[in-house]
């Protein structure tokens, strides 16, 4: 299900959460990246019909928001970043209730309990669940009803590595016609599953493209420096990593210009490409601010 946003703006009082956001999300898994406070959750809530944009248009498939939000909800699976669950019902009861509300079957509840690894504890009241288990219940309810649009906001936060992997597998399962928007600030989660990436920063879209294209954004920003004592010559930039390779001390640096005469340009990773997008955006904002002051 395609999702189209045109010039969307959301404000919380004077604070701008989203500004001029225009996006076209096609079928597939989309990663939504951005630092804390970038507007990811706000964008998710707009698409999940919990927030109405102050300006702009939002279209989900053939339906326009907020006018046809009930139609959108029929095709929606949503896992919020922060949520609660009723304590005095069991996991199975809760999911069956959710299934009834979303028009899904009990068999699907059992299947999803298996998928998220909760079948053994499904009869226990939710208040006895750990944080990770509750997160998996949330994921299961989002997947109920085979949604065409799946919105998952920071789904891996409370999960252990095994569960993370399992979740990524669930999300990566291709289903024709489904659009998945996976919001996170953990880039490695997306590298496994996302077809395309959207980077949000300070309420604006800073990048839309594939993982490779995102990584390419970091070209000219990443450098390696081998066996150079810091005292001999000042080294600029931000140290990304330091490691000993074949008896040599290799330092990986993030800098807009060559941080040291001996520094050599390196091939950037996706994460470094993301960092460069954010750095560029910050630089642009700072420059705009300076011009404004002048």
């Amino acid at each position: 299900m395609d999702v189209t946003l045109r010039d969307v703006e959301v404000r919380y009082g004077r604070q701008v959460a989203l500004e001029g956001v225009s996006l076209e999300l096609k079928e597939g898994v989309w990663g939504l990246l951005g630092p804390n406070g970038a507007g990811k959750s706000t964008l998710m809530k707009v698409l999940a019909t919990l927030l109405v944009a102050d300006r702009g248009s939002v279209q989900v498939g053939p339906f326009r928001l907020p006018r046809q939000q009930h139609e959108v909800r029929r095709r929606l699976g949503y896992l919020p970043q922060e949520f609660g669950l009723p304590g005095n019902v069991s996991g199975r009861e809760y999911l069956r209730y959710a299934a009834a509300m979303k028009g899904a079957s009990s068999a699907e509840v059992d299947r999803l309990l298996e998928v998220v690894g909760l079948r053994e504890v499904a009869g226990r009241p939710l208040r006895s669940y750990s944080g990770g288990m509750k997160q998996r219940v949330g994921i299961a309810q989002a997947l109920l009803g085979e949604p065409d649009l799946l919105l998952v906001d920071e789904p891996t936060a409370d999960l252990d590595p095994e569960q993370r992997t399992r979740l990524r597998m669930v999300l990566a399962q291709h289903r024709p016609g489904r659009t998945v928007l996976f919001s996170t600030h953990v880039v490695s989660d997306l590298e496994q599953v996302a077809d395309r990436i959207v980077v949000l920063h300070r309420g604006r879209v800073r990048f839309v493209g594939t993982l490779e294209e995102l990584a390419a954004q970091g070209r000219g920003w990443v450098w390696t420096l081998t066996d150079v004592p810091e005292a001999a010559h000042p080294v600029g930039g931000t140290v990304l990593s330091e490691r000993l390779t074949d008896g040599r001390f290799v330092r990986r640096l993030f800098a807009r210009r060559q941080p040291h005469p001996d520094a050599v340009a390196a091939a950037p990773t996706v994460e470094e490409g993301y960092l460069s997008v954010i750095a560029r955006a910050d630089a642009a904002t700072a420059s705009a601010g300076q011009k404004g002051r002048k």
Partner: protein
Amino acid sequence: MTGARALRGFPFAAGDALFRQMLAYEARRLWRGVPPWLFVAAMPALFVLIGHWQAPGLERCHQMLPYLSLLNTALAAYVAWVIQRDRRAGADEITLAWPVSLLRLYLARTLALGTLTVTLWAEAVVLALGYAAVSYGTAACAAGTPIPVVQALREGGLILLSLTATFLAAQATGQLAAAMLPGVPGLVALVLYRAFTFGGPRLILGILQWPYALLASPEFLWDGWPWLARYLHLGVFADVYVAHQSFWVVGSVSALGALACLFRPRRDRATRASAALVMGTVIAVIAAAAPFVAAENRYARSHARAVSTYGEPVKPGLHSGPRREALSDTTAPAPARYDLVVDLTQPPEATISATLVLASPPGPGDDLELTLRRTFDVDEVRIKGVVVAFEREGDLVRVPAPSVPSGGNLAITLRYHGTVADWRLDPYEQPAALVASEFVYLPSTWGWYPVPGKHRLTWEIGMTSMVARALADRIVLFNDAEPTFAVNVRAPEGVRFLAGFVRGAGGTWRLDGMRNQLTLLGGNWVACGDGAARFAVPFEELDTWQAATADVRRLFDALADWTGVTPLTVVPSPVSFVNAGDVSLILDSQIGRLFEAPPDTVELARFARRWLYNLLSLQPRFLGPTVSELEGAPSATDREFDALRAYIVDRVLHDVYGVDAPPDPPGLVPPDDARVEAWTASTPLEEQQAALRHLFHDVLLRPLTPADLEFLHEGAAE
């Protein structure tokens, strides 16, 4: 569209499988908690522990209501906590993105909470109605009569209404609090609101009026907490009570409906139904308030009339304590004589010329103040035949007092006129004063003739009840003065009888004699009889009055022997009226009951006993200051006087019917009765009659003093 189809179209149709699932899920969540079961257990415990087991059904229910309000405050707080727990916990973040109507969701939660409310209501109703049924059954069985079904149904209906209002209100206020102030502030606000509505509106505003009255919680009215009721005089009228309770029933249901519709409003298909329901809610709330608005309009009209009559609004105020001392001007010069010429031939106009003679007028330089109701326009004031300037201020006429030799008299003449059609501002709108074509009522306390001194003629009793603002006439106008009255009245044509007056030629009426104050009361009656009682007989009963009053005349003859007060003027049935003194006697006198009594001597004597006692209590000519409950406990003098009245009744009934009063149980005779018994036992009958005649003559229209009953103690001492 058929009804069933229309119902299915509704977003929360009861037959809807999805809605049933939502309801079952929410109810399951609710009843898995401990608090609902505590509430369920508390209800019968409350019923068993609170209230008197011998009280009638409705009474018992009202005894329980104040304590039920505590339970319901807890219930409301629990409701507030439950209704917002999903929002508090963040569970709504998920639920709200599901394809369910929020109207349904909120309604399912409301109805789930409603299962608790209904369970508690059913417990209370079954217990209260069951108790009422047993109460009626045993009472009827003991009396050997059939159960008064209509009365029982009315009582049951009131119980049902009262409990429905109180439980629905608990849920509605809980959900409203949660909607307006989420979290702990909501709970605090709720408890404060319940506390405020318990006494706040009345305490702050003095008198509950629309719309403040509606804010009072349903348990607040109908006596509420006994001590609060006693101090704030919370007795309310049945119609106001029913209207208030109905408002809470309709208002609570409407509020819950409105909350369901307004719960996070959204622009989906349910919105149209929501809008319709919200509008319906507004209309229902307005409709529910209609009885209050009507009642308030009624009093507003009365108030407007008061403004037009008195020239200024009567301010509400709290009146408490004895009234007489507070309202009489004890420093005023005493009048020695009145010459009144009253022309009432153009009803409702009264044109009066009053000459009063003051025995001890104020000194030169001082103003002489006379109280005359502001209804009257004063045309002229003369002193010693000379026209003098005067000032009119409210109910006062102020004239400069001329120099008068010491010990000399001062004669002042006032000519004045005005329209007399004044009504008391109580719910029953009794006439305060009236001049009509067939009826004249001008009580002395209304101020229709000038009285020396500054007297307050009316005041408003604040805080008497929820909406009643009765204008109460003062009781004593002249203190102890007993001037001579010479009165000529030209009455309206239709007035055939004027109490206490003698008819003269040309439609004039004449009265001469000493008295404390003068009330004009007349109507389309004819004076008949020449014994101890003179009867003012309604025109249409002239053919039957003799037969109808035969027994009463015997009673009056005997009564006159014992009290010396004669003649008494009586209007026989159907007008219950005894000897013109106060309009309240018309309403309160029990004389009509005597005429309805069966013609069996014993039964008649039984009725007569009560009738005579009431007559002696109400009749101003037998005035003994019966102290109302509001003014404190009766004094020893009052109690002794009561015992004397009871003794007179016994003697009269013995003389007329030969019936003796049943003896008091041994050891249970009150000391005052014992004193009277001692006196009667040691005093010959003739001496008793003489003492009592003297007593009734002396206490005529003035407060009773301990000295008046000194003879009882002398007799006891001997």
